[in-house]
């Protein structure tokens, strides 16, 4: 087990290094930041001066060597735009995203398991149909649509919630709601599907013969046996949330890493792109290791 974790960790570190290398070279194929950073009417000399000042005039391999050298001293570069250390910028934004992601994924997984399991317990019933249609409608609605309409209704219309921003618990409600919809819809379907197969298994009959309560049969026996795909899909959704929920972050003014990363990419603020990817990739690799360990915990037949 521990040797497995060690092996996974070393593979993952290698992969992150590979990822960073890839990002470094590929981002530099996407255009010249000086054109974006300077005003449109800046002169050619001004742009050349800018490139020189920021080392962009060097050959890419040289820049990469410099980058590696700095990395060894835990210097992740300066943000061109923000006049700050790029890693500082990323680390400041990441917790905000993480908070949202954790709440959203926990909530949606818990709710989806509940709803999906109950739907699977009575396939074709009214509850099943309503749950399916409602969750799918939520999952396929554009997130900005839900967010803006939500604000127009709940903040402007009935004035129950603040429009946006951070601060009180009330500020959490709408962002979380928007973030929960898609994971919820997808997970309800996955739970329902895998549960249907699990409920037809002989061990469910055995549990019934033992007189196990129905809720326990559903949630203890059938669900537990169908958790593998559920955990995987939830993990994948968590990953996309960890990568940042751009729409929610920008609409609600949530200072997360998603918007930061998008802005940095659009503005070719390379140091920030690299730092944010390093932060989120680390989180994602750790998450995936945790999920793989969870497999072994959930199903004793799986051994690494």
């Amino acid at each position: 087990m521990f040797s497995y974790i060690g092996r996974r960790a070393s593979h993952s570190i290698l992969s992150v290094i590979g990822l960073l290398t890839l990002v470094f070279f590929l981002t530099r194929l996407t255009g010249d930041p000086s054109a974006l950073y300077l005003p449109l009417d800046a002169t050619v000399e001004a742009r050349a001066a800018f490139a020189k000042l920021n080392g962009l005039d060097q050959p890419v391999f040289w820049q990469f060597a410099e980058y590696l050298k700095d990395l060894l001293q835990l210097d992740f570069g300066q943000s061109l735009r923000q006049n700050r250390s790029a890693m500082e910028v990323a680390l400041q934004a990441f917790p905000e995203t993480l908070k949202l992601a954790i709440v959203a994924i926990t909530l949606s997984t818990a709710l989806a398991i509940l709803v999906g399991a109950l739907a699977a317990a009575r396939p074709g019933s009214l509850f099943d149909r309503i749950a399916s249609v409602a969750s799918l409608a939520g999952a396929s609605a554009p997130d900005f649509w839900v967010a803006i309409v939500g604000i127009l209704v709940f903040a402007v219309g009935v004035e129950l919630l603040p429009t946006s921003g951070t601060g009180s618990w009330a500020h959490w409600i709408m962002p979380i709601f928007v973030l929960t919809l898609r994971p919820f819809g997808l997970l309800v379907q996955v739970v329902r599907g895998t549960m249907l197969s699990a409920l037809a298994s002989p061990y469910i009959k055995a549990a019934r013969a033992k007189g196990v309560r129905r809720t326990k049969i559903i949630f203890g026996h059938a669900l537990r046996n169908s958790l593998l795909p559920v955990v995987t899909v939830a993990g994948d959704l968590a990953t996309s949330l960890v990568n940042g929920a751009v729409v929610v972050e920008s609409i609600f003014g949530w200072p997360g890493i998603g918007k930061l990363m998008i802005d940095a990419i659009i503005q070719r603020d390379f140091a920030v792109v690299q730092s944010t990817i390093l932060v989120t990739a680390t989180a994602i690799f750790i998450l995936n290791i945790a999920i793989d360990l969870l497999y072994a915990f959930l199903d004793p037949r799986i051994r690494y």
Partner: protein
Amino acid sequence: MTSITPKTNPTAAPGTGRILFAYLKRDRLALAAAIFLTLFVLAASFGPWLVGDAASRLGLRQRNLAPFSLEHAWVYFLGADTLGRPILARLIVGAQNTLGIAAAAVFSSMLVGGALGLVAGYSERWYSHLIQRFADVVMSFPSLLLALIVLYTLGPSITNLVIVLAITRMPIYLRTARAEVLELRERMFVSAARSMGASPARIVLRHIAPLVLPTLVTISAIDFATVILSESALSFLGLGIQPPDFTWGAMVANGRGYLSTAWWIAFWPGLAIMLTTLSLNILSNWARTVADPQQRWRLQTLRKAAR
């Protein structure tokens, strides 16, 4: 062994198509979904030919025309968009690009992701690890950055758009397939197949894949909506579909600024996306039932004995 006694009564089995149709008729919701999707596909095939001109005709003086007015031609029944073009006609014409791109992206990500996931789950060799770390890397790679890179290196085209969309959606199929395989490969019938000499390919494709597929199809049905919506975000960068061509996703994005003043611009294409996703899901649930011998009775006409 014992001599073969050929029997000559191959009871003419009703064609699989007929059986499937009978199953479809038993599930009203699935039937409705199938009809609905057929309509969409028909719209996608014949729409441009029917209302193609109307869909691109400017009407700057009837910008954001409200829906349900009968004063204008029928194509304006659902209102007009920000350039006064009839939304209904645009929905019909946009179906082709939308469904085409989404289907291509979802299908290829499911195929590639699923296949890699099956390999990664079944094999314990080095490439299994390689595939998994590859998935991790793809997951950590921002899709927007990928899109930009593709745009700058390969240039804008619909194929490249599909490639980007497919790559970004792929890890979920890969990881889900792998997770299921991890459990399935420990099952006895896999051992049995192995003991009969089935090659790994056969075991994976014939024995494991059919049990993994339903989950992948469920995910893909919802991914359809995701892909349609994210497609418009990537088109915004200049990758892929460009005006005057458009998709439902682009129509939704177009109405973003008008949610409080002209709700219909984003609403109708959003509804179309939602209905497509819903239909695909209902059909995928139906297919899951058909494919599972233990559930299939739900779609059969159970003839009870007289009592």
